[in-house]
């Protein structure tokens, strides 16, 4: 017995919302103030790593299509790796700032995958709309970690990165298994519930 997909998405939306809020707090108070307490530097990378770990059960318990399983597995793995790289930077295990690009690469691949995968048009259903919106959001936002790599203290890059995850959370909270989007629902998609 597995929960409905929309419920799982809402659970992960909560994680992404917390991630976004932590990053936003860091952006508002500033890079140096945030790092006055060392434990604070571990917060968002730990959360990203944890989200990756918790995506594995989603991958193996929702196997109604090969792509669905593989997609979640790869997302789990990239989240774990990106989170671990950031934790290692915070901890001093890795030193090169270019490791921040692991997050950017992960986001770019994720965004492209959303767009390549979704075959339906934007207004087919809410799920289709969210796939497109999530894909473009994450793909475009992959530029923020690049900016952070070059200028870690720049307010714009940090706020942009934080707001990306708030947006992802909002989009995931908006997900329903079968629902219209702005009044549109293709008759092919079935009855809304």
């Amino acid at each position, binding site marked *: 017995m597995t929960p409905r997909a929309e419920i799982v998405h809402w659970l992960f939306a909560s994680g992404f919302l917390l991630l976004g809020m932590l990053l936003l707090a860091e952006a508002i108070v500033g890079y140096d103030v945030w790092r006055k307490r060392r434990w604070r530097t571990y917060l968002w990378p730990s959360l990203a790593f944890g989200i990756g770990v918790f995506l594995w059960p989603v991958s193996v318990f929702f196997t109604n299509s090969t792509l669905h399983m593989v997609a979640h597995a790869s997302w789990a793995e990239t989240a774990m790796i990106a989170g671990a790289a950031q934790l290692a930077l915070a901890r001093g295990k890795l030193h090169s700032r270019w490791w921040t690009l692991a997050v950017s690469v*992960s986001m770019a691949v994720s965004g492209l995958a959303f767009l390549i995968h979704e075959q339906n048009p934007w207004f087919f259903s809410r799920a289709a709309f969210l796939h497109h919106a999530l894909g473009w959001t994450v793909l475009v936002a992959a530029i923020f970690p690049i900016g952070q790599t070059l200028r870690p203290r720049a307010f714009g890059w940090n706020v942009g990165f934080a707001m990306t995850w708030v947006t992802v959370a909002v989009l995931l909270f908006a997900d329903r298994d079968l629902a219209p989007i702005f009044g549109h629902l293709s008759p092919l998609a079935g009855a809304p519930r």
Partner: protein
Amino acid sequence: MRRPAVLGAAALIAVALPGTAFGHATLRHAIPAFQSRESVAPREVLLRFDQTVGLIPHAIEVFARDGRRVSGTPTFGADHRLVRAPVSGLVRGGYTVRWRVLSSDGHVGAGVFTFGYRIAAPPPTQAYGASGPTWADDFARWGLFVSLALLLGSLGIRLFVLREPIPDRLSKRLYLFAGLGAFATIDVGIAAFILRAEDALQLPFVDLMYGDLSPFATKTRFGVAFVAMTLGFALVAALVVLSWLLDAPKLLRPAFLVALGFASGLSLSGHSAVEPNSTWFSQLADFLHLSAASLWAGGLVTLAFAVWPLAPELRRGAFLGFSRLATVLVGLLVLAGTYLTILRLPAVHDLWSASYGRVLLVKLAIVSLALAWGAAHHFLVRPRLERGDAPRGLRRSLLGEMSVAMAVLLVAAVLVNSAPPPRPVAGSTQATPAAR
């Protein structure tokens, strides 16, 4: 050429596709249910999807064990989410249901499941049309063994051979090997699972991407083992990463134990678990055989590629320590292997008359070479190291033994995917078919 393409593409997608897929039709309900045992012959097969679907040729086909088609023309039910096909002429036996529908997003969703009429349903891997494992499955299984060896070997060397503290650069390399091994075990496991399901689904690659894997994940031993192993090795990967980040080598002990425990999934889902004469003892023997081989082969990789180039001062101690550990491992390997050989080959002539026996002979030949190599290290090199000598070319020799060990794992992968010869039934001239 289709199989290699599937393997390659599955591996690529495992790296490159972090998205979600809920835009295509998903089978919600089936009558008869997956792997159900029906006491009354069903008059129709009924499939309910989560959204409207289109009918395409071969939308629902039901096959008897002998390939006889027992289903009629599919039609829609009360709405276009319900597809039904009449069935007739069922006799006692196992039946395969293959379905293919056009999703509203343009994809062809497909799946296969089985049911039994007055008998237990066969597993979906034995669906009509499935051809059994091919060389691609063997290759994937080999990848799984190598990944597991890298994980267990690097952890084993650190925990049982080297003494803390170890040089930082060696520590980093060992963490890298363990992390790679853990993630590779998961990724190759996913590829192996998809390949195994693909054999039963019999779908072209694009359709396979939308194939329903749930009957395999929930109703087969290898599927359940896959689910458990994926979760287990994700935990191992997390423990290894945390151990590295927190400078806490003590976390490697639970990581090793969890990895060892979940490696048993391979034994519990292989033919050692489904043969008619399988017992808990034979499964334990298979687990010990696999674990000892992984630890031995992975230990050699770790010695050759981590200890030797990065910690010259530890070479002597590491070699001597591994030599002691390898003695125990080889003992376990030989004892468990001999027991399993006797169990799986009812007659000596099966060694050359059955394909399983011939593969086993090849394996025995390569294992003999590996054992001879190991014995040379143990009896010739070890005493010199204990006297304080530094034999030249030892790394090359370790690389040689490691290569032979990898070859052993490859042949073992072929052997695991092969069916042992059937065992004669007492008081009968007939034989029971061996299960895969």
